[in-house]
């Protein structure tokens, strides 16, 4: 087998889908075989992903690597084309990692286990496909492919209001993806050549008006996914009803698709429009951070609290994307990976707590720290990671966004000042709601009522193992972020270089009527030196 020409990406993308075909034929013993089988598939696929990147990926190359392209429909120039660059490679890794752990987290699932694992593996393929594909139409197919398992996972294994939540989820996201389809078709058919190839699409020159329309369409679709306020209300419902493993996937990977696509398409393919829309992204990001943090504080349901905290954290991704600096963009990517890990761990712990207390209402909890010291310790650690404690990945990501945005030359001083203050207010609000949450669950005298009804047992080794796996990279990236940033640095550098060229050109072009982003710029003294 030739390692260099082996179709790595196709293999890792399709392996889980191929493997789930065999699930119906496995012996039915209450899901015991099928869960080992799924875990093995997940693990093998993850190992293959790591091997593929280890053998063939070169950090110093900014462009696509491990490219595979097979013609599917020649008349349409539709290709099965996969490839990764610095942007998608960490997210593919994250997908493999989180999905494998989610499979392990799904151990206690007893309702229709075969179908459950079938969907989990199908989702695996959909998620990797979204990050790895380099063809617009293929992207759309994967995007939709991954919706169906999520819908079913929500509507069959969810909580009491699962049907409502699942319907809301599917209407929102499918509605959003219509915009992707329309925009993709418009881009494909524009100009002389009809193509769905992303690289070719990025090279096409679109008139500004069309760019703005396309940008708007993509933004709506990805705003649903990320989510951006006010298109976020599906998320608390979906997260409020999902079971722990689905939760981990929703928070760990699905939200990242929105951020990834924003960078790949809005920023990468429509840079001119980006210079106009960027201030809007910053404002939306600030709203996300502060508004969601406040809502999270007022929430009385544990899952919804964490769900809103995810929304709040995604605000930093938006601001990083809009920062016009490599540092900010790197911060945004790091924040996606970091939140993928932290969000997954928090949601897993929420599930573990719920398994014991059988309630999500904070008022009914309290004082359970004594009975569950390990869960208490892990919950505290992950909450501290989520509130961006230094030494953990969230801090580095937020810091990079802060510094990147604060030193960006694209915005006026006042605009930056206000935005940075909003972000910093988020930094105060995050510990308020997270620590209040910890206090209400674990601290205080033992809750007699709860103890009477539920037997509170501490974490089992499987649960400690899952959290330990998630904490290793969280702390690792926190201590030495270069480990991760060097993977994508070349790619983000290339993207920002192109963006700043466009920005300068655009600023010159519209000197008479300045675009919003080019408001009178107060240059940072450090840069002018």
């Amino acid at each position: 087998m030739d390692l260099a020409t082996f179709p790595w990406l196709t293999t890792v993308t399709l392996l889980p889908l191929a493997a789930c075909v065999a699930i119906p034929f496995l012996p039915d013993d209450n899901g015991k075989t099928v869960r080992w089988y799924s875990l093995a598939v997940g693990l093998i696929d993850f190992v293959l992903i790591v091997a593929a990147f280890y053998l063939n990926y070169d950090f110093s190359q900014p462009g696509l690597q491990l490219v595979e392209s097979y013609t599917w429909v020649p008349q349409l120039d539709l290709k099965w084309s996969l490839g990764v660059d610095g942007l998608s490679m960490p997210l593919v890794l994250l997908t493999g990692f989180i999905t494998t752990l989610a499979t392990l987290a799904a151990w206690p699932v007893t309702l229709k286990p075969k179908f459950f694992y079938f969907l989990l593996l199908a989702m695996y393929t959909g998620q990797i496909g979204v990050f790895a594909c380099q063809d617009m139409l293929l992207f759309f197919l994967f995007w939709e492919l991954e919706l169906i398992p999520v819908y079913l996972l929500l509507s069959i294994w969810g909580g009491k209001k699962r049907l409502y939540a699942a319907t809301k989820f599917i209407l929102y996201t499918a509605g959003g993806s219509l915009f992707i389809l329309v925009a993709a078709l418009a881009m494909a058919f524009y100009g002389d050549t009809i193509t769905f190839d992303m690289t070719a699409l990025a090279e096409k020159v679109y008139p500004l008006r069309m760019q703005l329309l396309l940008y708007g369409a993509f933004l709506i679709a990805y705003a649903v996914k990320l989510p951006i306020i006010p298109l976020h209300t599906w998320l608390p419902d979906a997260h409020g009803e999902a079971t722990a493993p689905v939760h981990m996937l929703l928070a760990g990977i699905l939200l990242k698709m929105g951020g990834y696509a924003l960078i790949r398409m809005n920023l990468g393919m429509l840079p001119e429009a980006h210079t106009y829309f960027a201030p809007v992204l910053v404002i939306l990001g600030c709203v996300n951070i502060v508004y969601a943090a406040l809502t999270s504080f007022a929430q009385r349901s544990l899952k919804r609290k964490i769900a809103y905290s995810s929304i709040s954290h995604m605000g930093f991704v938006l601001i990083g994307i809009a920062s016009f600096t490599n540092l900010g963009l790197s911060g945004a990517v790091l924040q996606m990976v970091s939140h993928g890990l932290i969000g997954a761990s928090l949601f897993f712990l929420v599930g573990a707590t719920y398994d014991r207390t059988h309630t999500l209402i904070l008022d009914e909890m309290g004082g359970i720290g004594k009975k569950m010291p390990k869960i208490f310790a892990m919950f505290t650690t992950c909450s501290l990671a989520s509130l961006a404690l230094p030494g953990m990945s969230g801090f580095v990501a937020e810091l990079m966004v802060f510094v990147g945005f604060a030193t960006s030359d694209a915005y006026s001083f006042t605009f930056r000042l206000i935005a940075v203050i909003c972000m910093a207010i988020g930094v105060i609000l995050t510990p308020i709601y997270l620590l209040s949450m910890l206090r209400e669950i674990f601290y205080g005298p033992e809750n007699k009522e709860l103890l009477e009804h539920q037997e509170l047992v501490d974490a089992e080794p499987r649960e400690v193992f899952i959290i330990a796996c998630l904490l290793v990279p969280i702390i690792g990236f926190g201590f030495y972020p270069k480990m991760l940033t060097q993977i994508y640095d070349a790619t983000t550098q290339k993207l920002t270089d192109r963006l700043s060229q466009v920005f300068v050109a655009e600023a010159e072009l519209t000197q008479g009527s300045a675009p919003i982003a080019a408001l009178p710029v107060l240059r940072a003294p450090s840069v002018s030196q």
Partner: protein
Amino acid sequence: MNSVDTLDTLYQYAWLVPVLPLLGAVVVGTGLISYGEATSKLRQPAAIFIVSLIGAAMVFSFAIFWSQVQGHPPYTAMFEWVSAGDFHIQMGYTIDHLAALMLVVVTTVAFLVMIYTDGYMAHDPGYVRFYAYLSLFSSSMLGLVISPNLLQVYVFWELVGMCSYLLIGFWYDRKPAADACQKAFVTNRVGDFGLLLGILALFWATGSFDFEIMGERLTDLVNTGSLSASMAAVFAILVFLGPVAKSAQFPLHVWLPDAMEGPTPISALIHAATMVAAGVFLVARMYPVFEHIPTVMTVIAYTGAFTAFMGATIAITQNDIKKGLAFSTMSQLGYMVMAMGVGAYSAGLFHLMTHAYFKAMLFLGSGSVIHGMESVVGHDPALAQDMRLMGGLRKYMPVTAYTFLIGTLAICGIPPFAGFWSKDEILGSTFAVSPLLWAVGWVTAGITAFYMFRMYLSTFEGTFRGNDDGIRRDLKRAQLQRMGMSLGPGAMNPQELTLDAVQDDHDDHGHSHAHEPHESPLAMIFPLMALAVPSVLIGLVGTPFANYFEAFIHPPGEVEAVLETAEAFDWSEFALMAGSSVAIATAGIILSFLMYSTKVIDAGAIAQTIKPLYNLSLNKWYIDDIYEVVFVQGSRKLAKQVLDIDIRIVDGLVNLAGLVTLVTGEGLKYLENGRAQFYALIVFGAVLGLVLLSGVT
């Protein structure tokens, strides 16, 4: 190998100082999380492991300190931490005079506190966990003091805050502890909000996180006019907000008294000797930036002076021995900050060092007292820490009493104890800059002497009141009333509960508790005795006539001929300054004796005559109450409103849209059948169809 090589090896491995305790914390922490019960049983081995690691770090620190005293040049090692394109952030460590001094102070206090912990926490089920936290804290604090740039300071700044959070909430089943740890973290985050903005602003302006470079470039920018002086002042004040929170300066001091809910060893280590002094340390590190901006120096000086005065006035009326010491800490930190603000750089740091030793000893002493009291009144902080139940303890706990007395004399500024030299130097330098600030500091010194002796006298002298049921009943009632008030009126009837509770207490105490307190075990009194030595003697390194301390620690960039100042030392001026501060301290002590020892003056009667002032002090100037209404309830209300908007308007519109669809009948089918996936399937199918169709044509 010659001596230069060995020295460089010493510096190359200096990173071990914070890493050794980290190792201890990680090993024990991992053990706790994976084999909780087994590790919890390994009490002594875990403690010995962690104490020997901090001991090794201490020896290392002394070696570094000695080599710095010998005149080894400062040493800095850096590595690249983050890079994005041509942007780099470096991390590393730096060893200079200030860092070496702080290393020694932190490791010695941490080492002694850890020995003390063995006695104090002997019966606590969380013994091992406590050691792991202590070790983690020591590691973060040591990392903080060797940080080479502002960003790394911020990193460790947050980490020590986290350790403080974990340790204040160590007894997490106590509600006050749960509230206090959150309050501490959030209040500190408010300060860090300013610090973060300040760091960003300074980086934006100067393009560096390095203290010296920031100072230089900022001065240049202001001088050339590219940055207005007021802007530079705002940046610097934002940075100063960090120390305001960490060093418990007004208006962000509210967390420190509540932090006393944590076990006493950490009150000594974190909330008296080391972490709270980190604010003063940061001001010292930021000196190259601050000293060129007069506005900031003024703000710093007045903040410090006001805090010193306020803390002292509140300390007068406290009955909880630890709360009293906490307000005293706040007041002493105010002195240090004021010293920094008036430009008395080395005096401020000198007081930091002396205060670290004598205040750690006072806190450990109070812990010893509480330990002794618990054998009489039981494990109830409301009773065991209240000075109204103490008295006459010198008879039962002589070592604790005499070391506490040494600490009291040191903090009052009685020569030749350590506090005299450092406080006198601060007051002397302040007088040269601003007589008003000096007056505040001088009055505060008198109040300090008064409340410290009030504390000493009511704890150790007189007769033991611990078995007085009347006082116990009163205290219990007051505590329940406080709790009842915090739950809101009508939540419970305090009177009923009081009776029950006291009844319970009676049964409890009649059987299981001794009638006399006892002296603490050796593990606890050894650190007290060890700390008594520097509390008495360490001031002698900084006497005005031979100031070795100032020769070693002086503002960066200021190669002052210290010896000359020593030669120009003016005896008459020293006599005047020292005389006036000793005089007011003595006055405070005498007044205290009259009120609490001989009872010539009735303290209660005075409190009655100046009722409003008394209440102001007792209620901590009502600042907690104001914050509770404005910030705590305000933010809750705001959050509730935002959530309402989210549910009713944002989500309401969505559901309304759904309803409209339902009513028009289009959506009815699939919603009722619950098969909305058809929708997705249709989209999916349409695309596939499109693909195939275009493939055919």
